[in-house]
């Protein structure tokens, strides 16, 4: 996905990410219902994103997201990307994903505020993996 994004110009990248955002599926009600608990809220994210990690039988995690701000289109795209690329992956790999990957995904011209919010989604997601790693060790 990253290589594909690298090959796109600004307009193509926006279109690609928008299509991902359109595919966003909110956290199922079997995992969480509104009002979502505050301890699932991503700090510093003005799109009001929430993250859940569901443990799978094979020890991996399935990630779920909610984005409460209707203007949070980038956050919804980010949720789709994180779910598609990190759910089911070995948690030691998930734990090591760096938050600054958002700039490779959304482009270097992302504003600081937007970058912080999206990076915080990555950070929250990878924290879930690090927490499990710590427990298992």
């Amino acid at each position, binding site marked *: 996905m990253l290589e594909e994004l690298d090959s796109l110009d*600004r*307009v193509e990248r*926006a*279109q690609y*990410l*928008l299509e991902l*955002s359109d595919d966003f599926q909110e956290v199922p009600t079997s995992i969480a219902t509104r009002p979502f608990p505050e301890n699932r809220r991503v700090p*510093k994210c003005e799109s009001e994103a929430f993250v859940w990690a569901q443990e799978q039988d094979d020890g991996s995690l399935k990630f779920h997201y909610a984005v409460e701000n*209707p*203007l949070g*289109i*980038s956050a919804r*795209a980010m949720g789709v990307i994180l779910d598609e690329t990190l759910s089911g992956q070995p948690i030691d790999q998930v734990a090591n994903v*760096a*938050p*600054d990957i958002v700039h490779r995904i*959304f*482009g270097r*011209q*992302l*504003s*600081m*505020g*937007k*970058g*912080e919010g999206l*990076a915080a989604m990555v950070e929250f997601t990878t924290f879930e993996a690090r927490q499990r790693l710590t427990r298992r060790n």
Partner: protein
Amino acid sequence: MSDINSRGYVNADALVSTDWVAKHGNDDGVRVVESNEDPLLYPSGHIPGAVEIDWAADLNDPLRRDYLDRDGFASLMSSKGISNDTTVVLYGDRSNWWACYALWIFQLFGHTNAKIMDGGRMKWEAEGRELTREAPDVTIANYSAPARDDSQVRAFRDDVLSHIGSSGKMIDVRSPEEYSGERLHMPDYPNEGALRGGHIPGAANVPWASAANEDGTFKDAAALRDIYESNAGLGSEDDVIVYCRIGERSSHTWFVLTNLLGYGNVRNYDGSWTEWGNSVGVPIEK
């Protein structure tokens, strides 16, 4: 929110309502322009006929830390179907913060026939108005830009040093945490960070969003005077410099002071804290 003309602004013509845009946005001689922080908002749906101007890709020089030059601005305007006599109506996310930034840059090239749609994208959406993903049909226009004039509404670091020396008024529009120096930047985003925290000596702290209502519209003139004059000590005759981190949030305050309150001498220091907080030897207060 009340009618724009009833709010007591000095230059109420600098704003248009969502109603006005719905009726006149596609008139001959009018071009609606969306400018956002979130690069996905415009392609996700925009006001029919609106074009996009991206604050980073379109308005900034790709290499130097500076804005586009005369040829770049003329080329941008032409490509967006804007001619010299086009009325440009800007709107965007974040209570029009980025739209004000674009409008401020338009002033560097003398394109004064530019307005803000009050309430921005949030209000348009809240009112359930039409958004489309259809690309607008744009006819390339002729645009002749003058040389960029940075002398009237833009301040540089040396201007700020001189301003401090003469006890000029300054407004720091960042958050209280940034103003106090408690917060510098996120560890992973040093590109917009600074080595030192605090604020420029003498600057009052008035966060930019103080000027906006919950629905993204601008507060009325009486409320704005309370904020900037009663509380922050400004007067309409003052020589004022505003700043933030890179000059975008402070564009919103520049617009308020200049257009809504009628201040005649307000400059935006776009170097802002990312320059000041990294500069050697400049004074800083905490």
